[in-house]
């Protein structure tokens, strides 16, 4: 039973991986990666890593892939033109590179001195890979890596917002001509964050009436 399940999921995993690099439309590549990730989570389950499998499905197939889908739809998912890709020689060279890499890794697996590599692994103890066991390790032995990882996530979130933010404020004339109700309601001498970075031109912080005249003028 485990063998059948292993080969089915391994074929799905490899099929998804090949689909990622073979499909021309980036949107389909993302969907192939979702297939790959979900079948990889099943492989994790076969290895008794229950918490990692659940995290894989939730974090990767759930959150990260949604981010990818949004960006692909935003950027437009430009298909690569058929004729303009890398030259044929380069394509053959990269396939040969991949084959050679696999050869090296296969030699490493076959020739390794690890005895247990040809076994089913260590005897299963109840609770192996459960969220409780992982959580206990994360909060005791691996507390520092855990905290560093959370800090890294914070830095990445701030960095992504900084990179992808809209520079130069609202530049289209249509947007410059519109006023929101907040422009007139807010106290004199205050500003928005967009103005703070020099993005958006603003009413002279005076009475609301002068602002409306500017808008009509």
């Amino acid at each position: 039973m485990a063998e059948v399940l292993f080969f089915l999921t391994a074929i799905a995993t490899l099929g998804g991986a090949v689909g990622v690099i073979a499909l021309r439309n980036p949107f389909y590549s993302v969907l192939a990666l979702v297939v790959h990730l979900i079948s990889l989570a099943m492989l994790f389950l076969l290895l008794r890593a229950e918490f990692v499998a659940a995290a894989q499905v939730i974090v990767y197939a759930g959150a990260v892939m949604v981010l990818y889908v949004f960006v692909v739809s935003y950027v437009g998912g430009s298909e690569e033109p058929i004729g303009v890709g890398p030259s044929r020689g380069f394509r053959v060279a990269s396939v040969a590179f991949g084959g050679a890499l696999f050869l090296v890794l296969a030699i490493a697996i076959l020739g390794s001195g690890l005895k247990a590599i040809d076994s089913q692994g260590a005897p299963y103890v109840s609770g192996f890979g459960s969220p409780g066991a992982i959580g206990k390790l994360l909060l005791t032995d691996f507390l520092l890596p855990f905290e560093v990882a959370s800090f890294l996530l914070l830095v990445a979130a701030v960095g992504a917002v900084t990179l992808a933010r809209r520079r130069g404020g609202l530049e289209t004339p249509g947007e410059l001509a519109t006023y929101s109700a907040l422009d007139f309601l807010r106290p004199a001498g205050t500003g928005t964050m967009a103005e703070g970075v020099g993005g958006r031109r603003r009413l002279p912080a005076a009475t609301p009436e002068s602002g409306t005249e500017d808008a009509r003028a």
Partner: protein
Amino acid sequence: MNIAWFLTVSALIFCVGAGGVMTRRNPLVVLLCLELMLNAANLALIAFSRMHGNHDGQIFAIVVMVVAACEVTVGLGVIVAMYRRRVPIDVDELRELQG
């Protein structure tokens, strides 16, 4: 199933990802191929964790997932910034750091 089978699948996924990084020109797909390679490493880590009956490999895999999520966030931010500046979305055209 023997652990060696899982390691073989992991090696195959890694090679597919490495080949994809070399052939594809769309940075979005290059990021996807990087994900493939990271996931192959994760599979090997978890296979070894099962082999030793030790949880440390699974913790490593979780940390790798965190780093991959960060890499994706920043990479996609760069791609959106490129799109805003009308830079061609093509890794062969992007040879300069200068904006």
